[in-house]
C-alpha cells in the first residue's frame, strides 16, 4: 500500500449560520487521484481552501508528509505554509493577474521581493522543463489577459508545479475546457502521478471522474457521506450518494421541427478578437427544435450570443425573429420580439447581485404594467410574482427579498430560467447554461429546455460541453473562426475533430 501524503482530520468550518464543512476527514495516498464530489454548495471548495490556508478551520488539523515521507502538522491559515509543504492549488476561479505575463504569474511569490534583480532566465528554463514533462503548453511572455481560457487553466497548473507541488488540488479544472482539452489535461496529470504527484480534483462531470480518478469521496451538506474506489463505482451510485436520491434521467423524444423562429442571413460582426467576430453567418432555428452550437471557446460563440441577445449590432446581414426583421437590435428589442436569453456568465451578466431576487426576476420587463404603473414600481406585485416563480422553478435561498448574490450558482441559474421561461419565449438562447452546475441543477436546466421545445420554442444551445450538446440537440452546428458548419453526425470523435478544424 502506497504511503500517505496528506490527511485532513476532522475539519469544520462555518460561515455565519452556514455549516460549510462539518468534521470532514480525508486521506490521500502518494500517486493517487482522488475525486471530490458533491452538489453545488456541498463544501468542496471550502474544504480545499482550508487545506491551502485561505480559510482558517474552526476545528480540525491537517497533516502533510515532508520530503522524507514523515507526516507533519501543517500550520493552518497560511498559504505560504501550504506552498512550502508542497501543496499546490488550482482555484475554481482563476487567480491570475491579467496585466502581467504567465511567467510573472508563475514566479510570483517565489522570488525575494526586495531583490534588485530577477533571474528570469533560470525561471524560464525551469518552467520550460515542467512544460516539457507535463505537456501543459502556454505562452509565457504575453500578458495573461490575452490568453485563452484553456491556456490560463494550464498556467494555473504550472503555477502549482513550479512550486514543486507534491499534492495538487484542482477545483473544477475542466469547467471551462473542451472535451479534448480536458482529456489532454488529465492525461498529462496521469503521467505526473506516475512520478509521485498526488491529486485531489473536484468536478461535476462524472465522465471524467470515472475515467481518471482512483478513488471518490462525496460531500453532502458539508459532511463526508461516502468514499469508494472508482473501479467499484457507477454513475447511478455516485449520484445517489451526492443527492441522497435518484436523479431523473433527462429523456428526449423525437419531434418534427416547425416554422423558423429565427433566421440570420449573412450576419457579420467585427470584433476586437476572434471570440467577438462572425463572418457572414447564415443560421436558421425552427420551432420544436434545439440547435446545438459546438466549438472550442473563443471561436465566435461570444459574437453569436451577443447578436442574438441584442448586445452587438451586426456590421452586415439581417436578423429575423419569427416573421419580422429586427432592424435595430437591442436587448430590449430582442426581449419584446420574444427572445429569452440565458447569458454565459450568470454572475456578470445574469443578475445584479446587490439587488433582490424579486427585482432580478423583473429586470427585463420594467415596462410591463404588472411591474410598474406611472413610473413607480408595484412592489407588492413584484414580490408576489417572485414568490410564485421561486416556488415554480424551485429557486432556493434566503428568500425573494434577499440580495441575489447570496444564492448559490445553481439557484442563480434557476432564477434566470424563471425570468426567461415565464414569458414563453419563442426563441431561447442558452449560452453555457450548465457551466459549473451540479448534476441535479444541470438536469433541471436540460428538462426546462426540452419542455420549451415541446411547447414550440426554438432553442439555440451554445456549449463547450459536447456531452451536453449530444444529449439535448436536434441539430448540431460547429462554430470555428467565426464561421458555422452544420453536421449531420452525432459522433463525439468526429465533431471534436471539426471543432479543432481538422475535418469538414
Amino acid at each position, binding site marked *: 500500500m502506497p504511503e500517505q501524503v496528506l490527511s485532513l482530520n476532522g475539519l469544520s468550518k462555518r460561515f455565519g449560520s452556514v455549516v460549510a464543512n462539518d468534521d470532514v476527514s480525508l486521506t490521500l495516498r502518494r500517486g493517487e487521484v482522488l475525486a471530490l464530489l458533491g452538489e453545488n454548495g456541498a463544501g468542496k471548495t471550502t474544504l480545499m481552501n482550508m487545506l491551502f490556508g485561505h480559510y482558517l478551520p474552526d476545528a480540525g488539523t491537517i497533516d502533510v508528509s515532508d520530503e522524507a515521507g514523515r507526516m507533519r502538522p501543517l*500550520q493552518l*491559515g497560511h498559504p505560504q505554509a501550504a506552498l512550502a509543504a508542497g501543496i499546490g492549488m488550482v482555484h475554481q476561479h482563476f487567480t491570475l493577474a491579467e496585466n502581467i505575463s504567465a511567467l510573472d504569474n508563475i514566479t510570483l511569490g517565489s522570488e525575494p521581493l526586495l531583490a534588485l534583480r530577477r533571474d528570469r532566465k533560470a525561471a524560464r528554463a525551469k518552467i520550460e522543463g515542467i512544460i516539457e514533462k507535463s505537456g501543459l503548453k502556454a505562452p509565457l511572455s504575453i500578458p495573461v489577459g490575452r490568453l485563452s481560457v484553456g491556456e490560463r487553466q494550464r498556467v494555473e497548473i504550472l503555477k502549482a508545479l513550479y512550486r514543486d507541488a507534491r499534492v495538487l488540488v484542482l477545483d473544477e479544472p475542466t469547467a471551462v475546457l473542451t472535451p479534448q482539452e480536458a482529456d489532454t489535461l488529465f492525461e498529462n496529470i496521469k503521467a505526473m502521478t506516475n512520478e509521485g504527484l498526488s491529486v485531489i480534483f473536484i468536478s461535476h462531470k462524472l465522465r471524467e471522474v470515472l475515467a481518471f480518478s482512483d478513488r471518490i469521496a462525496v460531500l453532502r451538506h458539508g459532511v463526508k457521506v461516502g468514499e469508494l474506489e472508482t473501479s467499484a463505482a457507477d454513475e447511478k451510485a455516485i449520484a445517489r450518494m451526492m443527492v441522497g436520491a435518484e436523479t431523473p434521467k433527462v429523456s428526449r423524444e423525437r419531434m418534427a421541427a416547425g416554422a423558423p423562429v429565427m433566421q440570420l442571413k449573412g450576419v457579420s460582426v467585427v470584433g476586437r478578437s476572434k471570440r467577438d467576430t462572425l463572418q457572414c453567418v447564415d443560421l436558421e432555428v425552427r420551432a420544436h427544435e434545439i440547435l446545438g452550437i459546438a466549438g472550442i471557446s473563443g471561436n465566435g460563440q461570444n459574437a453569436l450570443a451577443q447578436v442574438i441577445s441584442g448586445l452587438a449590432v451586426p456590421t452586415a446581414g439581417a436578423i429575423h425573429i419569427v416573421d419580422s426583421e429586427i432592424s435595430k437590435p437591442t436587448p430590449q428589442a430582442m*426581449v419584446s420580439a420574444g427572445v429569452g436569453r440565458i447569458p454565459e456568465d450568470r454572475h456578470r*451578466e445574469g443578475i*445584479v447581485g*446587490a*439587488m433582490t431576487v424579486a427585482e432580478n426576476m423583473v*429586470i427585463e420587463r*420594467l415596462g410591463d404594467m404588472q411591474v410598474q404603473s406611472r413610473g413607480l414600481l408595484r412592489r407588492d406585485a413584484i414580490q408576489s410574482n417572485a414568490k410564485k416563480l421561486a416556488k415554480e422553478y424551485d429557486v432556493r435561498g434566503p428568500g425573494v427579498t434577499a440580495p441575489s448574490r447570496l444564492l448559490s450558482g445553481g439557484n442563480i441559474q434557476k432564477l434566470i430560467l424563471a425570468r426567461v421561461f415565464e414569458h414563453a419565449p419563442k426563441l431561447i438562447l442558452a449560452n453555457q447554461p450548465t457551466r459549473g452546475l451540479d448534476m441535479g441543477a444541470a438536469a433541471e436546466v436540460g428538462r426546462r429546455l426540452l419542455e420549451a421545445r415541446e411547447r414550440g420554442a426554438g432553442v439555440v444551445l451554445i456549449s463547450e460541453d459536447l456531452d451536453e450538446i449530444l444529449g439535448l440537440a436536434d441539430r448540431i452546428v460547429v462554430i470555428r473562426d467565426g464561421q458555422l458548419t452544420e453536421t449531420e453526425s452525432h459522433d463525439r470523435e468526429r465533431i471534436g475533430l471539426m471543432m479543432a478544424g481538422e475535418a469538414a
Partner: protein
Amino acid sequence: MIRIEPRNSTSRAFALGIPILSAVVSLALAAIPLMLAGANPIVAYGEMIKGVFGSVFSISEMLTRATPLIFTGLAAALAFRAKLWNIGAEGQLYLGAMAAVAVGSGAFDVPGIILIPLIILLGAAAGAAGMAAPTYLKIRFGADEVVTTLLLNFIILIFLQMMLEGPLQDPMGLGWPQSAPVLDQGMLPPLVDRMRIHSGLIIALVAAGIAQFMLARSVWGFKLRAVGENAAAARHAGINVNRSLFGVAIISGGLAGLAGASEVAGLKGYLTADLSPGFGYTGIVVAMLAGLSPVGVVIAALFIASVFVGADSMSRAMGVSSFLADLVVSMSLLCVLVGGFVAKYRIIRADTGKAAR
C-alpha cells in the same frame, strides 16, 4: 493573525452606541491639539456644544451651513449610486450660482413668484450642463469622469473669475470681481426673522425626500441601482445604461447647481469667487458617510455642519487658531468612518499557532 469578519447580528444598542462612541473618541482626540495650543479641553467641549446648540442663532447657523452640504451630498450620492464618479460638484455649484445671478440680478424684473422658480430652474440647469459634458465624454470617448470633473472644477473657477471681471460684474461694485445682487423679490424667503437660515433648506430636504423615494420606488431608481451595481447585467437585461448614466448626471449636476443657486439667492445675495469653502468636495464625504442614502445625506450633512460650526465657535471662545475647526471635522470624519466599520465587522484575533495543535 488578525481577521475581519462581518458581524452576524448587531443589537440596537450597539448600532446606536457606535456613532456616539465615534463622536466621543473624536472629541477625545481633539483634546490633543487643544492641549498643544494650551487650552482646557473640558471647557472647550462645553463651548463647542454651546456653539452649535447654545441658541436659536447657533442652531440656525448650523442649519445654514448644512443646506449646501445636503445638496452637494445628494449630488454625489445619486451619481455614485450609478458608479458615476462626479467629483465636480464644486464646479457645478458655481455654474448654478452663475446662472442664478445671471437671471436673478435684473435681467428679468418679474415678480418673485416667477423669478424664484426661474432662478432655481436655471441654476439647476447650469449645474446639470456641467455634469452632462463630462458624462458625454465618458460615454462617447471613455474619458474618465473623475479626471474630467476634477479638472472642470479648476476651469469653471477660472471661468467664474473671468465672468466676474466681465459680463457678470456688478457695475455698481466699484470694480470688485463680484456680480450684481439678486433682486429682492428673487431671494429665497428666510425661514426665521433676523436669522440667515433660508428656504433653500426646505428645498434641500424636499429634494432628499424625493431622491429617497424615487431611488427605492421608481423604475428610474431601479434602473439607476442596476446600472450602478452591475452595468453589464443591466445592459444585458435591456436597460439603456448610457441613458441612465446621462439621466443621473443631469440630476446630480442639477443638485450641485441648486447648491450654488441656493447659496446665492438664499444667503449671499450676489456671487463672488469664494462663495463655497469646498462644499462640493465636502459633499462627497457627506454622501459616503451616508452610505449613499439620500436620507442619510441629511443626517451626515447636519453632523458635519454641527462639528464645524461648533469647533469653529469653540476655537474663538478658547482663543486657539481657527484652523482647529477643520482639524476637528477631519478627525471626527475619520472616527465616524472607522466607527461605521466597527458596526459592520468585527476584528478577531485568530491564533493560528494554537489551532494547528
